[in-house]
Each structure stands twice: as structure tokens, then as C-alpha cells.
């Protein structure tokens, strides 16, 4: 068995999500190759070659892959597919964008959001916002899956010395073109990789309070900041901060939910966190059902006090 892992990166650095996917590949067993597709992405290939357990790195460095357009990436992956028993990508917006396209080009079904490798052809995945876990077996000749990073530890980023091979393909589907990108800048750790996440809900009431009440706590803890859909929809914080079924899935050591009621869709994105703290003025808020520590009260009193005392 040889498994192809699609590298998540920004053309300069390899994203840690790739390391979780490598661990999923190791659970399958077999040779592990990494595909780095991008533009001027040699540095990423060098990093990928150092991941422990990886035997080969394929680099497709070309303009057509610069922005990870699914139309182009999927053609590349499809052409490489016959060499592999499994193709895995992180269940990020990027992985979810191109992988189903690869599957359809191969006329195969795929598995979204695998959280566990049961055997080489059988995987667990959450359905119904995580209220059920399905065990699914793939009878396809190539097992295609996106991997939920919270389900797997990160493989060691160093210790390996894989051969790097250039892939000559440059497939331009000419079905889409990149216009622009606006990436949020933040000095905080990335939401899906952070050890501590501090999230705010509708109760924060405006972006000012996110900055003045919640941010100091996050800063003191060195935490990433997240939010409920209600807070995002209301424009208090950017979209990419949404935690939940249809936002980001996080499982940090500590998740602090502030003024978040705990709707099913929100819980789906954070209930696998190691320790959950909820601060809410309603003792019956559903978030209490998953909180290890629930502190009832007004966040505007509690959060500044908490920030001062830790």
C-alpha cells in the first residue's frame, strides 16, 4: 500500500494539519508520499521531506497551482491517483474543496472528515453534527478521504529524509481564475492548532467587547480566539473565527466558551476539547452539558476578574 498525503501550505510553510494527516496515513500502514502542489513552494517540499515516516515528496511547482484552485489541483491528483491505494487530505476548506472533485473524476465515492482509521478500508466519521459516529467501509480501489485533524496527533515534523521528486504536470482546467484573497492577520495562534481557545458568543454584543473584554484573556493565556455563529453573523468578528459543525473544528487542551449557549451546531465544533469551561448567566444553557467547569454569572464581571487572576 502506498498512501498519498496532500500537503496543506501557503507556498512558504507547511501547515501543521499535514502532520495530522500523516498520522492517519501511518495508521493505515504502508509507504507515505506527500504531494506539494503550489507555486515557488520548494521550501514546503523541503519541510515535507523531513517529516518522520515519509518516503517520498512529489512537488508540482507551477503557476496553475499558485492559489490551490480545485479545478487544477483535482486534475493533478487524479493523474497521480493510479499509483496509490489511499489519497488523504486535511479536512480544511482547501481539502474539502478539491477532494470531492478528485473522487468524481475517478468515479469513486469518498469519505469526509475521517476521525479514526479502523483498518485500511474502514474509517469512523461523525454525522449529524457529531451526534452519531458512523463506521464506513470503502470498496473503492482507491480510498479517498479528508482527515479531521482533531482526530489524529501530529507526526514528528523532523527526523525524516524523503527523496524529493519533481512532477512535471501542469494542468490548467481553464474553468476558474483567481481574483483576490483577503487573509486575516493575527498575532495569535491559529484557531485549529492552538492549545487554548477562548470563544465568544452573541452575549459579547459587539466587536468592541470582543477586543476589550475577551481579547485580554486570550492574550494572557496565549490563546486563539473563536466565536459562535451568532457572533460571526452579527459581524462582531470575522467569518473564519466560527467554531462549529459548519465552521472550524477544534479540540484544544482548554476551551473557554463565554456567553455561548451551546447549540448542537456549536458543540459539534468543540466538544472533543480536553477541558471545557463555560461562563454563562443562564445555569440551564445547553453548554453546561459538556462543560467540565461551569461558572454562572455575568461575563462582563467574570472575564476581567479571571483575566486579572490567572
Amino acid at each position, binding site marked *: 500500500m502506498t498512501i498519498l498525503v496532500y500537503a496543506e501550505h501557503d507556498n512558504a510553510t507547511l501547515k501543521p494539519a499535514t502532520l495530522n494527516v500523516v498520522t492517519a496515513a501511518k495508521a493505515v500502514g504502508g509507504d507515505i508520499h506527500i504531494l506539494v502542489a503550489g507555486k515557488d513552494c520548494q521550501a514546503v517540499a523541503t519541510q515535507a521531506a523531513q517529516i518522520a515516516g515519509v518516503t517520498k515528496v512529489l512537488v508540482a511547482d507551477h503557476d496553475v497551482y499558485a492559489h490551490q484552485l480545485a479545478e487544477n489541483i483535482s486534475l493533478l491528483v487524479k493523474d497521480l491517483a493510479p499509483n496509490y491505494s489511499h489519497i488523504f487530505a486535511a479536512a480544511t476548506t482547501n481539502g474539502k474543496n478539491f477532494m*470531492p472533485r478528485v473522487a468524481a473524476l475517478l468515479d469513486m*465515492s469518498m469519505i469526509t472528515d475521517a476521525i479514526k482509521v479502523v483498518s485500511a478500508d474502514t474509517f469512523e466519521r461523525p454525522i449529524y453534527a457529531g451526534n452519531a459516529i458512523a463506521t464506513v467501509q470503502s470498496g473503492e480501489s482507491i480510498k479517498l478521504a479528508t482527515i479531521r485533524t482533531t482526530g489524529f496527533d501530529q507526526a514528528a515534523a523532523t527526523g525524516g529524509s524523503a527523496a524529493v521528486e519533481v512532477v512535471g504536470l501542469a494542468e490548467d482546467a481553464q474553468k*476558474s481564475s483567481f481574483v483576490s484573497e483577503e487573509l486575516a492577520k493575527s498575532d495569535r495562534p491559529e484557531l485549529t492548532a492552538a492549545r487554548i481557545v477562548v470563544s465568544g458568543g452573541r452575549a459579547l454584543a459587539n466587536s468592541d467587547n470582543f477586543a476589550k473584554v475577551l481579547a485580554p484573556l486570550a492574550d494572557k493565556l496565549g490563546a486563539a480566539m473563536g466565536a459562535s455563529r451568532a457572533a460571526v453573523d452579527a459581524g462582531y468578528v470575522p467569518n473564519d473565527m466560527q467554531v462549529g459543525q459548519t465552521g472550524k473544528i477544534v479540540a484544544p487542551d482548554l476551551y473557554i466558551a463565554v456567553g455561548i449557549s451551546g447549540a448542537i451546531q456549536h458543540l459539534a465544533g468543540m466538544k472533543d476539547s480536553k477541558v471545557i469551561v463555560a461562563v454563562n448567566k443562564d445555569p440551564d444553557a445547553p453548554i453546561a452539558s459538556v462543560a467540565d467547569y461551569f461558572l454562572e454569572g455575568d461575563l462582563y464581571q467574570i472575564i476581567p476578574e479571571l483575566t486579572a*487572576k490567572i
Partner: protein
Amino acid sequence: MKALVAVKRVVDYNVKVRVKPDHTGVDLTNVKMSMNPFCEIAVEEAVRLKEKGIITEIVVVSVGPAAAQEQIRSAMALGADRGILVQTDDNVSPLTVAKVLKAIAAQENPEVILLGKQAIDDDNNQAGQMLAALMSIGQGTFASKVTVADGKMQVEREIDGGAQTVALPLPAIVTTDLRLNEPRYAALPNIMKARKKPMDTKTLADFGLTSDSKLKTLKVEPPPERKAGIKVKSVDELVDKLKNEAKVI
């Protein structure tokens, strides 16, 4: 210009489903069913394009049981013109749904095809991308803004780090994210009018398809329970617990 919108009948988003005791699936008896929320957003976007004069006809398709007529009628009450129900009582994989939609698109020739980014039952997030691949056309997934002009579509997409904008020649596919729009409520007269709008019923066999899939669900289990937490009385107690019991700070 024609729009094709795919809508799925799913468990209502407010329902917390339970796994069946025999672990064959989730218990759907007497559970409220609705249009998948992302599909509602797709219908709303099509209606807005029609109101702007860009789209002239909206065709809705659902693959599902006879009862999925309700969701097609709901889409018509929101402004869709015509419905196609591809009737089956089986679970249908996103790949099969994509094949059905491809066949219907070949008959209808829509320029704009809208789907939800994911169905909130199986949480697959696949059908739109698969359809785009099968049709060999461009995709604007997780859309937060769509503009159609001069034979082209521009889609702003929600991506992990922020937002990306892509341009796609028509026909093209959009899958909707939550911030694309806020669906309207259907007004009573529109609900009445929707009853008279045309709806075709087809089967998978009409398209030479079956519900077979190479993915088999072996079992469905409840997620691991979290052990019950405690209520703390004060910030001091919380800080103490986090430092000395949980040891996370």
C-alpha cells in the same frame, strides 16, 4: 438564464438525533424534517438573482422520498418556478446525487447551478464539487457573495484563513455558506401559489442510475459521552481548578 437548485430533505437543524439501539442508523421516526438550511440559502440566492433580472427561471431538484415534495414546494413558495423530484426511499450518496444532477443539467442547460455546501445530516460537503467535476465546469464553493455579469460569475468564498474571490465562466456551480444571504420566510399567498407550480417525478432508473454505493455504513454509534462537569462558585475556584485539578494553565 436558467438556474438549477438542489435541495435536500433532512432532519430539522433543531433536532438532536439519537442513534438506534441496533446501531444501524439514527432514529428518524416522528422527527421533524426540513429543507437543509444551506439549500434554503441556495434557493434564496437564486430568487435574488431572478429579482435582479439575471435569472429567468429557477428549477429545483430533490432526490429523496415522496415526502421530499414538501421541500420542493417550500422552495417554490420562496420563488422557484418548477420542481423535479427524483424519488427513492434509499440513502443516496453525493456521487449519485451529482450524477442525477448532471443528467438533469444536460436536459435543462442551466447557467447557474446552486447547491448547499453541506447537507446537515451526513455532513458530507461533496455533491457540488462532484457535480462540477462531472460537468467539467468551475466551482465557487462556500460562497459568501455571488455576482453574475457578462457571462461570468464572481464568487467570494469563505476559506480557513479569510476570504478568496474566484471568477468562473458560465455555466458554473456555487455551493452556499451561511453568510451568503438570509433566506426569507414564504408569505401565505406564495405558499398557495406554490401548490400550482409544476412538479415532475422521476426515478433513479430514468437516469440509468441506482442507489448502490461502494461506501457501506457498517454501524452507527453514539459519540463518547463526556463525563459530567461541575459548577464552580467563583473565579477563584475556577482558577484553582484549572491550575491544580485540570492542570491546563
